């Protein structure tokens, strides 16, 4: 924390010399060695470190892939296959990069739900949360553009569907769309700019990550009790305590990662993306990557025009609104208690929220007209029951209600459980409970 005075003592001559000119070793020491961490952090807290690892892996493999990739609509597909076949360990680089994107999102979702459950967005961590939201938004943009680069069928039609969302904006939409695509359709200019931005954005993410970690070190880490650090008793130095715990979690994360890369590298991809993009042949079923599916379901949930507002525009507003609400979260939650451990009502709404997000993800992968279950048929032989479109709409409604109604309302009405006086008291109580 910022009021934590530095304990770094340069020992050798060169360290003293450098410390007087650029105290970078001091910064590293204060941030990653002596930095006090709450002693009760659980494994949900290891995903911050895991995410740094993911970003590093993506940048490293991405830089190497860019050395062999050709950003041209006629050549991109074959250049990716050349990487897979003829570049030494090219298949490894590409599979790590492609599966790395999925693992990155898997980790970021756990990181976000952890923040949501333990109230890590509440004062004084609002800026920390906002920076995290910006990183997440940049990740979506980067992943989307990266998925376009192999120029397969899903790449191409994904780009068509997503860029066309902009066209739904009244008056200026079509002009912005042409400007974004670099023409009147997704084509070579689109691919070129996506490649350029896909190479740029990860470094922007890295910059925001530095701000995120800076903000974290100013306010200190939250912890499962949500009670702020009160004394030195509550903390342990980052090294070796957090480093060894983060390290262990990273290894288990890497085992899952490796299982995908080496034994099921295409499991999270789509077969159609091994067909070269063909603007004249639309695939039967356009779906984004799994980590975008919940938002895709929200986008398609609204199916009818509302007076002069077309359904498509409402879908776009809902989708961007769903992301915007995550940014607004610190000001929507009225509860005085941070951690949902001590919020007996709210945590059930949280569980339902997680299920809703997973359910929306499932809906995003289905055709909207498909039935979840049917209870019979009408006179035309059409099934009656719950369609994916209706289920999506219901879950979208809950998604919005969670942020806009439940968060503010439950926070005011709920009777929280007694919160421990300090972190060390909570740790002691837990310890005694285990013993007795």
């Amino acid at each position, binding site marked *: 924390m910022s009021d934590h005075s530095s304990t770094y003592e340069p020992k050798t001559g060169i360290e003293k010399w450098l410390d007087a000119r650029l105290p970078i070793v001091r910064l590293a020491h204060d941030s990653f060695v002596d930095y006090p961490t709450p*002693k*009760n952090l*659980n494994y949900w807290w290891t995903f911050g470190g895991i995410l740094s690892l993911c970003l590093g892996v993506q940048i490293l493999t991405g830089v190497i892939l860019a050395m062999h990739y050709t950003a041209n609509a006629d050549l991109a597909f*074959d250049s990716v*296959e*050349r990487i*897979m*076949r003829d570049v030494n360990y090219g*298949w*490894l680089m590409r*599979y790590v990069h492609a599966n790395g994107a999925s693992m990155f999102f898997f980790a970021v979702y756990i990181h976000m739900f952890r923040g949501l*459950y333990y109230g890590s967005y509440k004062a004084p961590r609002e800026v920390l949360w906002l920076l995290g939201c910006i990183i997440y938004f940049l990740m979506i943009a980067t992943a989307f553009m990266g998925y376009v680069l192999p120029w397969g069928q899903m790449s191409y039609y994904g780009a068509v569907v997503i860029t066309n969302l902009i066209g739904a904006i009244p008056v200026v939409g079509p002009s912005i769309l042409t400007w974004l695509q670099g023409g009147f359709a997704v084509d070579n200019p689109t691919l070129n700019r996506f490649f350029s931005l896909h190479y740029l954005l990860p470094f922007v993410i890295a910059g925001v990550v530095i701000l995120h970690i800076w903000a974290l070190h100013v306010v200190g880490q939250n912890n*499962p009790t949500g009670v702020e650090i009160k004394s030195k008793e509550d903390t*342990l130095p980052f090294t*070796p*305590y957090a480093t*060894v*715990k983060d*390290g*262990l979690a990273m*290894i*288990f994360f*890497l*085992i899952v990662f*490796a*299982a995908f*890369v*080496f*034994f099921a*590298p*295409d499991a999270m991809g789509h*077969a*159609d993306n*091994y*067909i070269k993009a063909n603007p004249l042949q639309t695939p*039967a079923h356009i779906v984004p990557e799994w980590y975008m599916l919940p938002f895709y379901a929200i986008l398609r949930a609204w199916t009818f025009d509302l007076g002069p507002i077309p359904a498509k525009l409402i879908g776009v507003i809902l989708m961007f609104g769903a992301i915007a609400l995550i940014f607004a979260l610190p000001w929507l939650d009225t509860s005085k208690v941070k951690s949902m*451990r001590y919020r007996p009502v709210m*945590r059930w709404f949280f*569980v339902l929220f*997680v*299920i809703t997000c*997973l*359910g929306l993800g*499932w809906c995003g992968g*289905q055709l909207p007209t*498909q*039935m*979840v*279950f049917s209870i019979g048929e009408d006179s035309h*032989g059409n099934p009656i029951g719950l369609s994916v479109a209706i289920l999506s709409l219901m879950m979208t409604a809950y998604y919005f209600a969670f942020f806009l109604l439940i968060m503010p309302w439950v926070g005011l009405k709920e009777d929280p459980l007694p919160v421990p006086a300090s972190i060390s008291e909570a*740790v002691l109580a837990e*310890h005694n409970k285990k013993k007795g």
Partner: protein
Amino acid sequence: MSSFMTKTLKLMAGLAVVFTLANSVHAVASEGFKEPEDHHFTFEGPFGSFDQAQLQRGYKVYREVCAACHGMHLMSFRNLGQKGGPFYDPKYKNPNENPIVKQIASEYDIAEIDPDTGDEITRKGTTSDRFPSPFKNDEAAKASNSGAIPPDLSVITKAREGGANYVASMLAGFQPAPEGLTVADTQHYNPYVHGALATSWKGDPHKVPLGGVLAMPPPLAADKVTYDDGTKATVKQEAQDVAAFLEWAGDPHATERKQMGVSVILFLLLMAGITYGAYRQVWRGKH
């Protein structure tokens, strides 16, 4: 309180299972194609690898049957002799020196521009040449195939849901169209193909036949190729062999990848054990 999270996770895992099951049952009911048969290929699973004799047979089927219409423009002759390939020989680490591969390449005429005159000429193939395409361009391909372009087969098993099992099932699965299904003369019914047949079906709308139609006529027949190793060339055998060859061609480093994966995971497990020991040591008495 952590038990709350545990219970919740269990609940969610249960729901996920229910969702997945509901989804899979549903897929069978509405997508309208026959699920591919399981051909029990040798390359399946984390320890599976290609059967070289099968790859050789599969290449023969590709060359003598499929190659008449389907190109494999990502494949070079040298690939046939690389490690894991159908004609790999440990004596020739460099596939360009492999006599079988050299022989195969030399049997093809490759179009080229004469560097002295600029004329279009043909020359004998070399190991570095790509498999030649059967048609000069897409228009020629369409003209010879009633308007359809035969897809390139370089990554076909990755480009089809179901992979090699689908390719083998489809190739061996052509059937006469069911009574009541209108199929154009240039089309051929196949229950494994992903298609929507409701509009060309005259029977009970609840009993639309599974499958779709293809411009490709049934390509395989018993004894269409004569295998050098004496294997009996049934339609199923040919279909499986060529599917195995195409699987290898689409992912030529698969065996190397799986072998590396085993080492990587063993290494990570060892690291996990050591780190866990360190973790216990460091955190002793702290929680």
